[in-house]
């Protein structure tokens, strides 16, 4: 059998989805990720498939340990997302989700920059439907902004690929580096999708506006595809360490004051990406293993957290921390799953985040980046503070909102249950995950020092939260919008353009007035010296003209006669 890109299973399958009856559709939707995962498991490391296209040799399939890791976890996330949404009856959204997830997988298995570009853009176009499916005006505008940014990332990628081809004669997607201009463009393209600082805000803007299940699916693929691409093209680029460290730290301040709990999760998603980017920047085997492993763990616990908040949104109609509270009484399963997701993202020992994130921190220690290490330690405490405590606390505990919503539907709980199980399984028994990491693992997560120091960091953070709550210093959840970089294109730019157009209008009006005034003055001047007109008026009459002509004729006649 000729091997092919496994992403095509979900992309092509997704195209068929709208044609199927609702019961068949549900079976197919669940079967596609399973078929994809089965196929990925059967792929051999080292397999490549090439195809000629318009004179270029495209590497449509490349299999190595890095692609396989992403292949596994993307299919797991796809299955969880589909299962979570299986009760919904929205064939367009379901089809677009499959195409989106499939194109993310296909982009990972792409071995050249053109194939990567094609599926890079396909993820952008298909995923926007998960935002638009909310059907609100707000989601429509957020989707448009999201689409512009995502397509823009693709355009930069293509421009970079063209320049790289012109310089090297190859479109192979290997290590790129930032030395060339083409490489810099590609880095910015990846950086946009990876939500680098100042390029990040599409994430917090768009994800909270997507549907209940849409956000769960979105959270897994776009940004982690970018992490994969960075690991492939820019491993060991020191500049990324500082970018990543900034990403871990600044979103947590926003997360503390944000009221929309799905937006809080979007900020902590940004913060977790920072850990991976730092790992990629350090670039040692331990650091890359840490980044890749953390991407695996993160995809699952982040999806789990978004699933629990999706369930809350679906059952109560709101996701604002200021409106929620006390839901544990009627949604105990969702509460429990949320706490497991929160413990994982906080890297509690025996949870998935602990066995992966600690590799990145250890890699920083080995390489001696003390300042970056201190920032990441602060960010670790911070993420526990806002994701680990704030999310479950304000949604399920805090003050009783009086709401007594029903527990989430069975399929949602089932999906959350699998994700929660995986969070614990990876944390308790990390060996299978370590076995599929890109490099051989020589790392022991469960040393007494690791466990005790991590627990000290977390429990004293919890103590700080308790202290701030009891003293009333903790800022209350308030209905609000917090300004972020989207202010520049949602407020400043429109205002700027508005002022330009009003200026043009004013100049135009004044110019016309001056011009009209000038003509007016000229006419008035002419009028004043109208005595001059007498000459012209005198000449103007027909008889005078005839008289003049006769005089001239006589004059020439006399001249003629005298000259003979």
């Amino acid at each position, binding site marked *: 059998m000729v091997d092919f890109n496994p992403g095509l299973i979900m992309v092509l399958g997704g195209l068929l989805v709208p044609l199927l009856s609702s019961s068949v559709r549900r079976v197919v939707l669940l079967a596609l990720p399973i078929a994809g995962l089965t196929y990925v498991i059967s792929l051999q490391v080292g397999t490549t498939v090439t195809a000629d296209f318009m004179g270029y040799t495209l590497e449509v399939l490349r299999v190595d340990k890095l692609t396989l890791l992403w292949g596994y976890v993307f299919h797991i996330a796809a299955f969880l997302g589909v299962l979570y949404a299986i009760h919904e009856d929205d064939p367009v959204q379901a089809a677009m989700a499959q195409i989106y997830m499939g194109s993310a997988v296909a982009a990972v298995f792409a071995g050249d920059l053109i194939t990567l570009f094609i599926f890079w853009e396909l993820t952008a176009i298909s995923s926007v439907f998960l935002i638009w499916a909310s059907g609100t005006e707000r989601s429509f505008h957020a989707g448009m902004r999201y689409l512009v940014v995502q397509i823009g990332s693709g355009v930069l990628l293509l421009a970079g690929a063209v320049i790289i081809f012109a310089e090297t004669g190859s479109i192979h997607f290997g290590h790129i580096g930032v030395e060339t201009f083409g490489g810099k463009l590609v880095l910015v393209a990846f950086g946009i999708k990876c939500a680098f600082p100042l390029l990040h805000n599409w994430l917090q803007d768009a994800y909270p506006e997507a549907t209940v299940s849409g956000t769960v699916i979105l959270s897994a693929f776009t940004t982690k595809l970018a992490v994969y691409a960075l690991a492939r093209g820019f491993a060991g680029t020191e500049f990324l360490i500082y970018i990543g460290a900034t990403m871990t730290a600044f979103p947590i*301040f926003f997360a*503390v004051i944000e009221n929309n709990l799905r937006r809080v999760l979007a900020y902590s998603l940004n913060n977790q990406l920072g850990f991976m980017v730092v790992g990629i920047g350090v670039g040692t085997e331990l650091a890359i293993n840490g980044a890749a492993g953390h991407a695996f763990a993160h995809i699952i616990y982040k999806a789990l957290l978004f699933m629990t908040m999706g369930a809350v949104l679906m059952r109560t109609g709101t996701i604002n921390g200021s409106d929620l509270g006390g839901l544990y009484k009627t949604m105990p399963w969702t509460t429990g799953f949320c706490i497991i997701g929160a413990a994982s993202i906080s890297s509690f020992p025996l949870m998935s985040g602990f066995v992966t994130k600690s590799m990145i921190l250890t890699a920083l220690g080995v390489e001696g980046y003390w300042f970056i290490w201190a920032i990441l330690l602060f960010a670790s405490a911070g993420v526990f*503070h806002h994701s680990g405590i704030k999310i479950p606390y304000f949604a399920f505990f805090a003050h009783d909102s009086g709401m007594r919503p029903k527990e989430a539907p069975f399929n949602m709980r089932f999906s959350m249950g699998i994700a929660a199980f995986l969070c614990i399984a990876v944390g308790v028994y990390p060996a299978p995950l370590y076995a599929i990491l890109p490099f051989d693992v020589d790392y022991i997560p469960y040393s007494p020092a690791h466990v005790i120091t991590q627990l000290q*960091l977390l429990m004293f953070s919890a103590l*700080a939260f308790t*202290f701030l709550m009891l003293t009333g210093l903790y800022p209350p959840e308030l209905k609000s919008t*917090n300004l972020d970089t989207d202010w520049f294109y949602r407020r400043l730019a429109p205002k700027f353009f508005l002022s330009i157009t009003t200026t043009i209008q004013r100049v135009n009006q004044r110019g016309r007035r001056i011009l009209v005034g000038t003509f007016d003055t000229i006419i008035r001047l002419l009028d004043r010296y109208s005595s001059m007109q007498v000459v012209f008026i005198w000449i103007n009459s027909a008889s005078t003209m005839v008289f003049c002509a006769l005089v001239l004729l006589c004059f020439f006649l006399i001249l003629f006669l005298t000259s003979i």
Partner: protein
Amino acid sequence: MSKNSNDASHWLDDKRNVKKIVWALVIVCSGLLIAEGFYDKHPHFAIEYVYGFYAIYGFVMCVGLVLVAKWIRKILMRSEDYYDG
């Protein structure tokens, strides 16, 4: 979703139980500080030799985080429909 007056009472509804959780947290924290004396340290950075470094750092940085975030709110917070108008 309506408020049910016949709610079964929950363990957490009792303020005394919330207090118990706070005390449990304090005891766990104290235990973790004591535990630090019972294993060999192999740190990468000198500051990790400071007894209770992770505990102090976690507490101080979290309080700092929240206080700074509160201050940021003064600059960045707008009404909920800020962009809708």
